[in-house]
């Protein structure tokens, strides 16, 4: 499929979650639960999928993430900056109305990922040099409409994930360690959608935790002195990275014929990310498993958005949200520079012909300057991040 030509890797957006699964939703502050926008409901709220108006709905899109993190070490004039490559999360949805009250569909999307590249000789290299996490979700979904006002839906997520990271070996040895592994896991997505009248719509959605377990990843070490025989050159490892559950509540209100307001609250159950344990299969006294505390906390993201219908051809959108970091005070690792973030979004849909919509979005994330510390490494300093994310999507309903 063409979509797989895109580089699959993403960024931090509160931990390593990225919610760019529909350009219309991205434009309105990444609010999606209270909307029935056809195929993209597969991700945002399967309960709303059965409210699709046409018989067929297809949409696809991609975003380009340009993110930079900067760092200044505590009590020092040392500064560093990430040199991340462009990340391109994407989505594809296809849905069919089987009978009036029943719709089915499938979605392919990338709601989690992280890509961070520091200089290989930077001061935090014992923590991380570069990392790329990605997860592709494939979600067959069914949605059922109960009466005119209520819809429920559920999907099964088949998740294919991969991780690739490089960092320096722990002291006293210099040299690098590269870990490369992949994993397949299952999850689910259930949602309910309620539209009591023409003006109001309400949605609730729960996406389950997905436990990405790498069982047989490859590690290799380089530049290790030959006298250091206790570190193998190659070997295998296992590790677990949980993708946290999300609970979303959203409400949208059509204030006037042209003007719509929406609000959403996401609860992200980050507390499942307690530590990153890399279990080396070839172990010895001097080459122990790597245990890295993370101790994330659950976080809340409040979102506000608005939509204005300029004409039959143009709809403009805007939104803001605040994403509080789930990271722990003592265990802030530069592998995922997740700060408290304020974001604003803009969106524009162009509908040149009936059923076709070209959707543009722009998201800017401002990671607020903050002093952070990774206590086990005594690595402390001030971080700040910024990301620019333009997106392009297309949807066709008929």
């Amino acid at each position, binding site marked *: 499929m063409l979509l797989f030509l895109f580089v699959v890797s993403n960024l931090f957006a509160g931990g390593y979650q990225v919610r760019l699964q529909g350009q219309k939703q991205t434009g309105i502050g990444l609010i999606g639960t209270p909307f029935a926008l056809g195929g993209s409901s597969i991700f945002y709220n399967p309960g709303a999928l059965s409210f699709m108006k046409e018989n067929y709905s297809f949409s696809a899109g991609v975003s380009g993430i340009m993110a930079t993190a900067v760092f200044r070490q505590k009590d020092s004039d040392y500064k560093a900056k990430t040199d991340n490559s462009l990340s391109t999360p994407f989505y594809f949805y296809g849905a069919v109305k089987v009978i009036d009250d029943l719709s089915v569909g499938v979605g392919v999307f990338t709601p989690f990922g992280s890509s961070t590249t520091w200089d290989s000789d930077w001061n935090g290299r014992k923590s991380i040099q570069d990392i790329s996490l990605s997860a592709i979700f494939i979600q067959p979904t069914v949605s059922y409409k109960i009466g005119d006002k209520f819809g429920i839906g559920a999907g099964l997520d088949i998740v294919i994930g991969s991780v690739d990271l490089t960092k320096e070996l722990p002291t006293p040895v210099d040299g690098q360690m590269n870990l490369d592994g992949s994993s397949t896991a299952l999850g689910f997505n259930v949602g309910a959608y309620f539209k009591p009248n023409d003006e109001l719509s309400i949605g609730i959605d729960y996406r389950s935790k997905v436990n990405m377990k790498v069982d047989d990843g490859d590690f290799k070490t380089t530049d290790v002195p030959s006298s250091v025989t206790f570190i193998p050159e190659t070997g295998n490892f296992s590790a677990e990275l949980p993708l946290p559950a999300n609970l979303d509540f959203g409400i949208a209100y059509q204030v006037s014929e042209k003007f719509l307001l929406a609000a959403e609250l996401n609860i992200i159950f980050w507390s499942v990310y307690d530590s990153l344990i890399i279990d080396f299969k070839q172990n010895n006294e001097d080459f122990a498993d790597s245990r890295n505390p993370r101790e994330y906390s659950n976080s809340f993201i409040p979102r506000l958005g608005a939509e204005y219908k300029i004409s039959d051809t143009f709809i403009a959108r805007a939104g803001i949200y605040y994403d509080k970091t789930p990271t722990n005070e003592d265990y802030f690792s530069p592998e995922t520079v997740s700060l408290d973030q304020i974001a604003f979004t803009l969106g524009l849909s162009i509908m040149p012909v009936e059923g076709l919509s070209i959707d543009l979005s722009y998201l800017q994330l401002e990671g607020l300057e903050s002093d952070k510390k990774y206590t086990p490494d005594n690595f402390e300093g*001030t971080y700040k991040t910024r990301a620019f994310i333009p997106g392009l999507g297309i949807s066709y309903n008929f």
Partner: protein
Amino acid sequence: MKYKYILYISLLGLLFACEPELDDFEPSQGNADFSVYVALGNSLTAGYADGSLYRSSQLNSFPSILAEQFKKAGGGDFVQPLMDGEYGIMPGKLKLDYKTDCTDETSVGPVPDNGTLDAIAPLGYTVNNLGVPGAKSFHLLAQGYGDFAGIQLGTANPYYARFASSSISTVVGDAITQQPTFYTLWVGNNDVLGYAAGGGTGDTITGEATFTFMMNTIVQSLNATGAKGVIAGLPDMLKSPYFAFMDTQVPFNGLVLTRQGQVDSLNFAYAQLGITFDLGQNPFIVEDAVTHFPRQMKESDIFLLTLPTDSLKCYYMGSAIPIPHKYILDETEANNVNTFIGIYNNVIQGLAAQYDLAYIDMFDMMSDLENGITNDGITITDEFVTGNAFSLDGIHLTPIGYAHVANMFIEGINNKYNSNLPKVSFAQYPSVILP
């Protein structure tokens, strides 16, 4: 219409499309003036490491690291008496490599690192780093300590002779003529180390009165120039690998007898001294410090890093041949060492208070190293080789170790003089090089 909105979005993007920025660290000199900095002291100030003073070790000396940070807050050039090569002016440099012992067992350890030495010749220029390996407190005031003619006689020091301004100059005098605005003084280690490193043989500890007088004179002279400064105390020396490592490798009762014949002949040989042996583990036989007679080793005796382990394993040292006392520090000697470290540190701390100098407490650095000091994910400890704090001679430091010392000075200076000097990162300094 359509273009207008695309333009609108693009413009907003451009407005904010710059990278995030953080304010720079703002260095300041506070009440100090770093424009002319001189460093006085011994091998630790010179940058000695791995049993030698060589070019790259000098480049990583703590005063050199410090001077780089001073430059960010008004500091001037810092000239060191740099060697041309990596082997110094005297043989003895060590490197880590594979070595095979007398039992054909191969391991990695310090071995001689031989190469072309630098000639001992006058440099002909003034240096800011006046650290002289081997110098004791009183040497800094000794006329002729840099006299070439005195090197053979043992009255002069070849390291000082390289940069001494004349045959009768003194280290302190050479510092003062530069009209320093700031100085570091870390001396006194050799006043007790010479005694300790030789197992109490071959050298004596500088007496309290002499040490007090010499230190007073040095500080008074430097202070008279109006320079501000910092003075450092002595570390808890016996915790360094030179004194602590061998004890972890060779137990005091490591003489293992497996045959009755061995037991009988040793019993016969030492019968007059009343020493008896049994099958299994026995204390080694050592030379007593006072009587010079053989005696059994005590648990409180400390093996030094210089202990010739091959002689113990294969050539009857410690049994038929007593271990010479220069390889052992006994309890009395260790107590002497610790007593004088305490006395010296009182003197140094007293001077810091009297002359209003920053004082760096080096004594506790050793217990910090025992627990491990971590910076940027790099942990240094008091372990030999793997600890990465001590170089291969077990007394002097690695570049990371010197970086830590520099950070201790920076902290002390910032606190005392209200300056804001940036610290350095362990991650920027090399560690022990493994083969």
